[in-house]
């Protein structure tokens, strides 16, 4: 690596996070820490029926007996669960505002600043948005139009009230609360998130999107999302997230469950841009996320696409359980780590049904002093005849102080299963940089171009409306400068 490369990269490492502002708003918070009282408080705030509270308390009891998973390649101090606020809402949010006129203009302004307009006249064309601020949903756009098709798109708190039978049936059905400590914790204290139900044979005509924003200090965000695609339906869903710049760590522990019935398809995309911490590794979001999709019906399909650029720690393995015969699971991932960020991310594909197929494309880019791990688990159960997996893991190292690790795990109990695996690790190529610069591009432009090219296979899986944004985000997380 020549001197100029090192200098430019140091410059990247020092640049700033542009979503780091704080909204000054009075929020309503109970005391810090976790106990049964807090859970009752959350449940009461949300006006929940008894069955929901009972479920939460059961999950809490499970959590008490568990310790946090240790197998990831991550280093961080033990999380003090008594030092976190578990609920925070802008004052006066006992009931979700019926329309925007009831929403504090400061909140609307926050989303405008984030590029997510909520006002009727300005909403993103072709994208319905549910905006979640700390522990509550602020607004959902295009609701009426979706209702005409029988599509339910609302906050999970609302769904508990309006569609209790669906929530009861599916909540925790893909991620059992006892799975690990973060799923138990989330199940006990989840505050908000989105709920989607697509009726039989309905193709959702627009992108559904949730935008998560953590604002309050020392507050955990425990979001819960549940998406059900009934027989023959289709939906594409996108999640985005940011948080203010603070020098203390904040916990985000989400659970997302997807269920695809016969011939249904769910496409779930994430652009994760939580505050990553500063150049010395101070502050940033601890992102412990459990995402799991169940291809329950025959010929069903679930694909996960993620662009992970933020968070000081990312612990995340969007997975597919391929239960229905001929079902398909896909995972496309770009994970960029800079400075002292650590990412341990990958997927789990569990082939249960016959002729099930899975595809994994993972692109890890490490800069600065960061550590980036791909962790994969592909398994074929006894009845998964003629099933296949294709895995491709590529790592790109920029600089000498970062690390890339690939840990693919494959297990097969069926000898007709076919697995293909390709992996590569490369350094950013001086020859490519020279070529680009000889054509007049600056060093930064060249790096961004090469990295975007490296990620292309994944970025092209994103919904059109977001592909360009994601490319910009990739460029920004390399240089960090205000775009």
């Amino acid at each position, binding site marked *: 690596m*020549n*001197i*100029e490369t090192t200098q430019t990269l140091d410059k990247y490492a020092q640049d700033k996070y542009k979503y780091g502002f704080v909204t000054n708003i009075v929020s309503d918070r109970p005391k810090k820490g976790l106990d049964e009282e807090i859970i009752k408080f959350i449940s009461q705030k949300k006006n929940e029926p008894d069955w929901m509270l009972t479920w939460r308390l059961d999950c809490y009891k499970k959590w008490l007996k568990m310790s946090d998973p240790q197998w990831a390649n991550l280093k961080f101090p033990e999380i003090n669960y008594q030092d976190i606020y578990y609920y925070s809402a802008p004052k006066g949010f006992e009931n979700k505002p019926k329309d925007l006129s009831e929403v504090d203009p400061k909140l609307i302004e926050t989303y405008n600043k984030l590029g997510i307009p909520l006002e009727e006249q300005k909403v993103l064309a072709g994208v319905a948005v549910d905006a979640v601020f700390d522990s509550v949903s602020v607004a959902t756009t295009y609701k009426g139009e979706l209702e005409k098709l029988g599509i339910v798109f609302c906050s999970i708190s609302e769904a508990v009230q309006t569609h209790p039978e669906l929530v009861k049936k599916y909540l925790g059905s893909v991620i059992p609360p006892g799975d690990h400590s973060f799923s138990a914790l989330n199940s006990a204290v989840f505050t908000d998130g989105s709920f989607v139900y697509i009726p039989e044979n309905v193709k959702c005509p627009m992108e559904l999107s949730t935008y998560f924003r953590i604002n309050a200090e020392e507050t955990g965000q425990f979001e819960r999302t549940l998406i059900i695609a009934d027989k023959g339906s289709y939906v594409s869903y996108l999640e985005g997230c940011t948080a203010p710049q603070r020098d203390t760590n904040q916990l985000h522990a989400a659970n997302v469950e997807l269920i695809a019935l016969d011939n249904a398809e769910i496409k779930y995309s994430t652009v994760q841009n939580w505050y990553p911490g500063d150049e010395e590794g101070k502050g940033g979001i601890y992102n412990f996320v459990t995402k799991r999709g169940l291809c329950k019906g025959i010929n069903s399909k679930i694909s996960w696409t993620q662009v992970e650029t933020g968070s000081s720690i990312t612990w995340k393995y969007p997975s597919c359980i391929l239960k229905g015969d001929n079902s398909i699971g896909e995972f496309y991932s770009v994970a960029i780590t800079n400075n002292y960020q650590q990412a341990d991310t990958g997927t789990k594909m569990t082939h249960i049904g016959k002729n099930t197929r899975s595809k994994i494309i993972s692109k890890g880019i490490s800069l600065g002093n960061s550590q980036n791990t791909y962790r994969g688990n592909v398994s074929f159960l006894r009845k998964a005849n003629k099933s296949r997996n294709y895995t491709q893991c590529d790592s790109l190292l920029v600089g000498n102080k970062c690390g890339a690790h690939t840990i693919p795990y494959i297990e097969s109990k069926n000898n007709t299963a076919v697995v293909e695996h390709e992996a590569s690790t490369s350094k950013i*190529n001086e*020859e*490519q940089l*020279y*070529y*680009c*610069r*000889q*054509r*007049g*591009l*600056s*060093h930064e*432009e060249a790096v961004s*171009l*090469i990295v*975007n*090219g*490296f*990620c*292309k*296979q994944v970025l092209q899986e994103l919904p059109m409306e977001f592909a360009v944004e994601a490319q910009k985000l990739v460029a920004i997380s390399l240089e960090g400068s205000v775009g």
Partner: protein
Amino acid sequence: MIFLNINNLNVSIEGKKILDDFNLTINQGEVHAIMGPNGSGKSTLANVLAGNEDYEVNSGKIIFKDQDLLGLNIEERAQIGIFLAFQYPVEIPGVNITPFLQASINSKLKNENKPELDTLSFAKLLKEKAKDLGIGPDMLKRSINTGFSGGEKKRYEILQMSVLNPEFTIFDETDSGLDVDALRIVTEGINKFKNDNNSFLIITHYQKLLDYINPDYVHVMRNGKILKSGDISLAVEIEKSGYQNF
């Protein structure tokens, strides 16, 4: 105006001297050819002109368009009109030529304080130039140089040259690895582009290329120096009896 003047240039790499008191002057509109055996320092010269930082310039001067070229970095040199057609163009997977060259040409326009090209007008320009060179739209959709044959890579270099319209182009063994047909296509492209305002430095190992492009001057290079300069008859002599006479 001094177009290009290389004066007593000494260059080394890893302590090893490669260019030894090298001198060369090129005027606007001229075509120069440099011939020489392997290892004589031809590629080194090309890379030093382009600003490659792996080479150490120990002493000497390069003036290009009245400016001190050695004070500029790679992209600054490209932006004032230096184009190096590489001997081995590198593959850049996933990167399409359209945004790449658009960024390229705009960096140059910006440097000249001219309005930048939007995507639509750039795409039109690229398509026109590609058509001139017999490059089909399919080839424009592929990633830069990725999976290209030797001939395709060289044609891509010529395409980039004709879009960026540099005043000074260096061809580093553009003819190597090309069959007769590919060589004809590439040289036709160069001849089409050539005019009174742009100059060329053609580095080649063989005389064959010079059957297609008529140079104003031919130089013979060996051990980091130009040993003899003349016209095309020098190339004919080399073709007949090799480099042992130099």
